[in-house]
């Protein structure tokens, strides 16, 4: 029995390899189809939003991008306030979330005792599983009063008095506004960035780290000179994953942003964002108003695309500097 199966007939092998090749081809087509499906969906969505927004884009052209007027009664629409709100809240979120995520990831890979790593990283990943509406409600009912009573008066009295950047931190302590939205977003994107960082920090070969320690490096030196350069591109990838999430976040932001189209210099004042404008107004919007909201959706595509492009560019510059 075993002798027969060990030496199959030559004709049989030929047949097998031919079917294998056919299966391989089919499999390749299937994979290509999967990849193209994503591209087609993306392109379709982008074109559909562009088409839906054509009325307002034809009417106002570039003025739509640079006007901060949003007047549904007189059918005048400008996207500046939502674009600014989206970028500012996402930037605040990144500024807060990146250092904290970095700390979390380092602690979990380098410093924490082994028994602690599992529970802490699961807890952080659970943050990612909380629906955004819950973040919104937590933000509105728990965090907003805290901001209004504690953090914002303190900011007014401290940072608000510094000459140039003071204007950013002066304003009525409403609790709602760009800063609050940015902080809530920071909590939301924290798990995404920190889990990517933790994963890639674990890929650094122990040999490299141990050699560095053997040469007398401190933990910080090992992290800054060995771990971070080794994982740089993946870390930046993780940061931009978080940024992508922050740019498109809707419900949580709508609850705490204050939804006002008036542009102000202060981070404590209410603002609006692209996605929250759409969520707020789509229900009752008709004609040009609806078109303006769909055009806003297209702009979110463009903004996200530009951000990703910048990320790619940064990575390439880094690679060039390292002479790779």
């Amino acid at each position, binding site marked *: 029995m075993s002798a027969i199966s060990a030496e199959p007939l030559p004709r049989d092998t030929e047949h097998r390899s031919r079917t294998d090749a056919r299966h391989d081809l089919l499999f390749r087509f299937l994979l290509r189809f999967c990849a193209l499906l994503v591209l087609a969906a993306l392109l379709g969505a982008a074109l559909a939003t562009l088409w839906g927004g054509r009325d307002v884009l034809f009417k106002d052209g570039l003025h739509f991008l640079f006007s901060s007027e949003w007047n549904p009664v007189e059918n005048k629409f400008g996207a500046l306030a939502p674009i600014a709100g989206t970028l500012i809240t996402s930037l605040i979120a990144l500024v807060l979330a990146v250092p904290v995520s970095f700390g979390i990831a380092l602690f979990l890979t380098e410093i924490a005792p082994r028994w602690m790593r599992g529970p802490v990283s699961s807890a952080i990943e659970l943050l990612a599983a909380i629906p955004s509406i819950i973040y919104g409600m937590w933000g509105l009912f728990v965090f907003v009063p805290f901001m209004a009573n504690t953090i914002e008066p303190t900011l007014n009295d401290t940072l608000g008095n510094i000459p140039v950047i003071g204007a950013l931190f002066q304003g009525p302590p409403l609790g709602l506004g760009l800063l609050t939205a940015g902080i809530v977003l920071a909590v939301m994107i924290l798990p995404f960035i920190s889990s990517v960082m933790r994963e890639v920090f674990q890929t650094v070969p122990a040999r490299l780290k141990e050699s560095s320690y053997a040469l007398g490096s401190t933990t910080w030196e090992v992290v800054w000179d060995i771990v971070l350069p080794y994982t740089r591109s993946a870390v930046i990838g993780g940061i931009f994953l978080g940024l992508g999430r922050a740019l498109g976040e809707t419900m949580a932001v709508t609850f705490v942003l204050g*939804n006002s189209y008036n542009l102000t210099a202060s981070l404590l004042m*209410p603002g*609006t964002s692209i996605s929250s404008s759409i969520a707020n107004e789509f*229900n*009752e*919007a008709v004609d040009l108003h609806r078109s303006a909201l769909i055009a806003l959706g297209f702009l979110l595509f463009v903004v996200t695309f530009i951000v990703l492009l910048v990320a790619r560019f940064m990575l390439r510059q880094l690679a060039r500097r390292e002479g790779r």
Partner: protein
Amino acid sequence: MLTSSKLPSRLGAIAFAVAASLIGTTVQATDITGAGSSFVYPVISKWSAAYAEKTGNHINYQSIGSGGGIAQIQAGTVDFGASDMPLKAKDLSKFGLGQFPDVIGGIVPAFNVAGIQPGALVLDGPTLADIYLGKITSWNDPAIAKLNPGTHLPSSKIYVVHRSDGSGTSFNFTDYLSKVSAEWKSKVGEGTAVQWPTGIGGKGNEGVSAYVKQIPNSIGYVEYAYAVQNKLGYAKMKNAAGNVVEPTIASFQAAANTADWKSAKDFNLLMTDAPGADAWPITATSWVIMYKTPKNAANTKVAFDFFKYAYEQGQDAARALYYVPLPTSLVQQIENYWATEYKK
């Protein structure tokens, strides 16, 4: 003779039974669909549950917003649409549609000022407009003080809260401000969403209620039910007749009674700033929109029967949800409108 006469009669009986069961199922299975205003959704769902229990006909109402309701009825995908804004005669005749009011509700200014009890604050239209224009910025402004002699008003800044989503509530509120303030009319105007000169936006009545509750010295506007359920401080208003009135079901009904429905073609009338002595100035309704020549006669018949039921027997259900049933004279006028305008 006997057998031959018995056979056809038995066949007849079977045929009758089959026919009856067929008719029976079609009557039971009449599901009519409506879509539109979220303002009327709570009361329509309550009415439809009671109506289904009584007649077996189900009303499937989707609360997708007035704009959506108008679009759906124009596309003919629903049996009736409901909108917080009346359609103009031109738009009605273009599509062969008719419209009539369904239920009345009140919109109240809600405030949160330490030391002032609910109902202890009096405002009038021009003052409210100036607050929302950002011209009156502190609670002890002379205009507010004049309306509230003897009330201690703090000098703190007024935080204005409005709706961030497009809504019929905003439409009626801004319509009222446009009627009482020329400056509001020229600068802002009326609409389901407008360019608010000042303030922060809350999503939905619940969002505005939450903001007013949380932000000291704030003022907002919400549907009456939300002010009652959230125990918000509501303001009394000085109405068009110059009397100070409380927001109550009686004052909403007074507005509906004194509004000039008789001369409003297709009921195209907003009840804001109604002239009656006891009328609440920011009273609103919403309109049911249906084809004058029905696309589906059986469904349309059920829809009329449903609204007739709602007018005649749904009053307690409406009051329980803090809506106001239409006054009898208006119901009479609507039934005449059905008889003359709609082909059944």
